[in-house]
């Protein structure tokens, strides 16, 4: 009696998929499945030591899919099982076959059902250096909502487009821990595919008020927005048009998401190389999408599905912008001058100038505007002038822009720019 693991893949219409390879990996060693006549892709478990493995499935035009499995010895022989929660997209069954008394086998069959093409959602959780929030909770709530097709981000149940299916890979870059974790939906909860430290050390999360800590965060080889970009770029090269959503939960400002709050060295902020990314900088910057800073931006663009969406959930609470909007919203018409107090002193403007400033200059030059142009998708963000809030609805955690607080401003965005917020109060920057 021998035990074999057999692998079968099909798409959600039932059509068979032909893997390029299937391997059982542990550290640097791997055991490849072979095509056994009458049995399909199979691996004899006899030579496999009990332990934790990744069952790495490679299919054309898809990234490697590493299912978390284990091999153990039972009374009846060796068997394979899913570690953690079993993926909803996979079924595991056993059957005995016999080709005579001396040749009976137990086949442990893993049948994986995928979409017609790869689909993925990438989430980013910044480190909340000042408030203490665990932004991964907001990302995970959103992951669950995208699977359920409903959200409570408005405070009550609201239907949204279901983006995550059983076969959708959800990837979270957590800047507090430094880990990139990937899941498939589990039969309950989520099946963790893998969890990998980005860089060589976790994020240094000591007090943000101490300059030495900020410098260490800059100098460390730890998680950076560049890891996220590189992941998306590889996705674009391997599985074009597969990225359905790219959501970033963090503090933010006009210049981008603040993921660990690193400063740029002077050379890269105001110096001769100010158009280049500072290699030590970990935060997102609006200059990230240039040919210099993202040489493979064609692959970055290719990663996004035609209906792909990105969203920066954090603040855009710049008071000057809010005051310009309030002034314009309260002006009798678009041509009557009014005065606004700003951080640069008082400025006299008209509603028309404010509108043009937002449309021509501000919105396109933000991180969201720049990403929208680079990726060719709609990118949402908090409207300039508005801050994001955090709230819990039961065990769910949400970032949102309070539409009651900013009613006047939202009215101006709609009337002057034709921009209306989504369910969480964010507006499209393209």
């Amino acid at each position, binding site marked *: 009696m021998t035990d074999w693991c057999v692998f079968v893949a099909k798409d959600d219409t039932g059509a068979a998929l032909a893997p390029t390879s299937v391997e059982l990996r542990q550290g640097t060693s791997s055991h490849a499945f072979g095509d056994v006549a009458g049995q399909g892709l199979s691996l004899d478990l006899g030579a496999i030591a009990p332990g934790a493995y990744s069952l790495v499935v490679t299919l054309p035009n898809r990234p490697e899919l590493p299912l978390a499995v284990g091999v153990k010895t039972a009374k009846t022989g060796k068997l394979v099982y899913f570690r953690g929660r079993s993926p909803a997209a996979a079924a595991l069954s056993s059957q005995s076959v016999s080709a005579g008394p001396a040749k009976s086998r137990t086949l442990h069959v893993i049948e994986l059902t995928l979409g017609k093409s790869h689909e993925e959602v990438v989430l980013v959780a910044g480190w*909340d*250096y*000042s*408030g*203490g*929030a*665990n*932004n*991964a*909770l907001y990302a995970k709530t959103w992951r669950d909502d995208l699977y359920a097709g409903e959200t409570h981000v*408005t*405070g*009550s149940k*609201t239907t949204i487009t279901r983006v995550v299916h059983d076969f959708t890979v959800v990837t979270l870059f957590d800047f507090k821990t430094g880990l990139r974790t990937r899941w498939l939906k589990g039969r309950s909860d989520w099946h963790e595919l893998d969890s990998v430290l980005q860089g060589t050390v976790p994020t240094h999360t000591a007090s*943000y*008020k101490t300059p030495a800590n900020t410098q260490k965060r800059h100098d460390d080889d730890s998680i950076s927005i560049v890891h996220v970009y590189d992941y998306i770029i590889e996705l674009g090269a391997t599985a074009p048009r597969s990225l359905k959503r790219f959501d970033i939960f963090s*503090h933010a*400002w*006009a*210049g981008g998401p*603040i993921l660990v*709050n690193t*400063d740029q060295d002077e050379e890269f902020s105001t110096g001769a190389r100010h158009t280049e990314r500072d290699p030590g900088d970990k935060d997102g910057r609006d200059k990230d999408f240039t040919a210099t800073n993202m040489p493979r931006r064609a692959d970055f663009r290719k990663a996004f599905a035609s209906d792909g969406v990105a969203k920066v959930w*954090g*603040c855009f*609470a*710049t*008071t*000057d*912008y*809010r005051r*310009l909007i309030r002034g314009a919203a309260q002006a009798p018409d678009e041509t009557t001058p009014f005065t606004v107090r*700003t*951080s*640069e002193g008082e*400025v006299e*403007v008209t509603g028309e*100038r404010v509108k*043009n*400033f937002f449309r*021509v*200059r501000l919105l396109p030059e933000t991180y969201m505007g720049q990403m929208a142009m680079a990726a060719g998708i709609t990118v949402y963000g908090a409207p300039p002038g508005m*801050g*994001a*809030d*955090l*709230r*819990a609805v039961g065990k769910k*955690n949400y*970032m*949102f822009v*309070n*539409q*009651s*607080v900013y009613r006047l401003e939202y009215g101006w965005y709609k009337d002057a720019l034709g921009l209306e917020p989504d*369910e969480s109060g964010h507006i499209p920057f393209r």
Partner: protein
Amino acid sequence: MQSESSRAHQDLALRRSTVPGAVSSFAATAHRPTDTGRPRLSPWGCLAAIALTSLAPSCARSSGEQSRVDVPGDPSARPAPPLPGEPPHAGDPAETTGAPDETPRTGQDTANTAEALLASAARLEAVEVLDLDTRRLRVTFTAEQVEAMRDALTAATIQESFVNTPPPWSVAVRFRADGATVVGVPVGERALRVNPREPFSAAWASPSGEPLPGVRDIALGETLYDLLAEKLGPPSQEYRPARPLNLNGL
């Protein structure tokens, strides 16, 4: 698109505090039944009671006076006199910044709460801006500015949500009314975060992400932000301020 019910819910997002146990004044919180059922006066309450008699000089100093920004190295700047419940300055008399704050600490019966601040808002007597790290005095509000803050706090509400913005300046604000003090940290442009256990902290959540007990954000409007901007200048780097507006040519 939002449903009507969700809009209605959001309209309720800002509400006047009706938290059970909210007190009518700071001093009142000093009186709580003991295990024996008898009221007791906490050490802080005693200090508050004694302090009532020493309010006059402080008010007189504030009345009609320009708010002071203590500039390190400015020989004309003088340290502020100690507040009730605060030890006298122990440092060099030439020290140009105020003494480190010694107000509420964990375990003291001081009611450093948003509810207490709102309950006594109408009787606000003094407002001081302290450095968040050193806790030294940086600015004392004038009587006119205190009045503006009194109005803002009287109309303020406690939010059901937390503002997701780092402190625009590295400061805390100390409010005094009814002989007691409450310290909060401005967050964003429209909120004040009050933490009963760690008054000089902008954090609202524990490392696991759960809200810390008693921490509240007060929705203030922009009054405090405006007054701080006037005295401290544009928000510092940690808030990442606006870029140059550059409205030319539009």
